[in-house]
């Protein structure tokens, strides 16, 4: 989806440049790069993306060129967040975001089926609730 917006942005940029009478190869290159991005990157992201929830921890793996794997113990989970954009709703998808008390960033699980995501949120909330303390 982000690839799509990138493509649109590039096309708009190319269009604007064109009105300033810059050569066509700029537009061509932009389209080629955007197309390659759209064809390759989502597929790559999909292949990399993993997530797993055990009794004790949440684990996510995402990215493409730069890959990031995050592990957070269940005892440190602070909030569980479910988000659905307009497009995601159309495809019945959802994104689950799990935050800890660290400022270094949350764990995100993108593009889950909505029912799976709802189940996951319920599961995480129940598990995180079992732990006492303020999880810092």
């Amino acid at each position, binding site marked *: 989806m982000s690839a799509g917006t990138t493509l649109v942005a590039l096309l708009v940029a190319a269009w604007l440049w064109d009105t300033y009478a810059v050569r066509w190869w700029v537009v061509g290159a932009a389209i080629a790069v955007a197309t390659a991005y759209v064809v390759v990157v989502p597929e790559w992201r999909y292949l990399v993306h993993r997530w797993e929830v055990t009794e004790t921890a949440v684990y996510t793996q995402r990215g493409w*060129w730069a890959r990031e*794997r995050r592990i957070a113990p269940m005892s440190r989970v602070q909030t569980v967040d479910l988000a659905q954009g307009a497009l995601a709703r159309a495809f019945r998808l959802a994104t689950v975001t799990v935050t800890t008390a660290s400022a270094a960033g949350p764990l995100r699980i993108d593009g889950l089926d909505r029912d799976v995501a709802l189940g996951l949120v319920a599961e995480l909330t129940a598990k995180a609730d079992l732990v006492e303390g303020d999880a810092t």
Partner: protein
Amino acid sequence: MTDPDPQPWLRLDPRMLLVHPAREVVRFLPVLVGILVAGGASGAGPWGLLGVGIPVALGLVRYLTTSYRITGGRVELRRGLVQRHLLSAAIDRVRTVDLTATLAHRVLGLATVVIGTGSVAADADEQLELDGLPREQAAALRVQLLQSGAAAADDAALPSGTPPVPVVRFAPRWLWYAPFTSGGLVAAGALIGVLSQTTELFAVRIDVTEDDLSALTGLAVLGGAVALVALVVLLAVAGYWVVNAGFSLTHDGGAWHVRRGLLTTRETSLDETRVAGVTRGEPAALRLAHGARLSAIVTGLARSGESGAVLVPPAPRDTVADAASVVLGTPAPMTAPLRAHGPEATRRRYVRALAGSAPVVLVLVGAVVAGASPALLVVAALAIGAALALAWDRARSLGHTLVEQFVVARSGSLRRRRDALATGHVIGWTFRDTWFQRRVGLVTVDATTAGGQGRITVPDVRVGDAIELADAATPGLVAPFLRLGSDA
């Protein structure tokens, strides 16, 4: 602690009636000057009085509308006339208590209490700030706030009559380290900025003619440079002196107390159970002078409050080492030998440094090819030399270890740092690798925590070592995912 009787609301110290109006007058000074000038010109006397009256009235209103109390395990603050604020925070969430006293406060024996709860609200309106309590009352409040918190169990924590022995105390020879910090440059920059503004303001013109330029001999240039350096050094030392004079780090009542300041004194208290670790900053310049600085990683105290977590300002390395071992309870995290990251990580440091200098070198070489003076090649060589030196130092710095339940990591060169984070405060792990890193089997590991910058980073460590570190630091957390982590 849960008192059924509601506590009465307490006022700030009435002596603030002197401070507040004075401050308001200063704030309204431009307006006042305008009114006085205009009033003088038109002969309208009463308007001048109004100009003085409004700030004084504002100060009075602020005093009358601000009150606080401690009740039912919460500290509550009420303020505002038109827009009422009621702030309330649980005492067991209090992480830091700051006592600040400007010159005006000190003359009157007052102090401002700022209560830090680790809230992310940066808005000044949302801060728990009690501006103006008598000193003793402020100190007592601090003890009360921090003790009802996590340190309640510590029976030895009761404030005794004798002041505790400081762990670290300011010594004049610390001033030697001031020029090796960036403070002087910042101060000099600010001064130059102000000077250029004022010369513009007063329309002072410095005319430079060609004769002047030709009269500018090498000696004069040298003299100017020396004067500039002297100015920077002077400003750095002066700034360091104003901020850090009278510095002391003490441990009392279940908290660490940092006290410093020449004119405005500032006392920061960090709840000791929230100190998750320390960071020893050892930038290249400070290392040359055999100095270092120390700050605490405090749970719930975000990066913006970094200045609040200073444990030792730039000071001798031994002083910093002593302080670190007292704060952590063991000298090991700061002295233990680190595990090196191997030749792959070293090669990465060199490649990255050289790639960084490449544009400069290419431009210079291109210019020479295009007909510029070959002397530019010397500059290009210098750039490469600097990159190599940087890479050498960065590679040398890399290291990590796990010692006595502390994750220890060191990296960087110009801003080298050694972080020690207690494993009990590690609240997660992040493994990052780009395609280049995967190619040579390296990974950048973050141990995330709830304070400081949110994580400490171990860059470019071998995958095996990284997993070993994470598994040893938090047993059982990483192991279930190992199979998954090794594929893809």
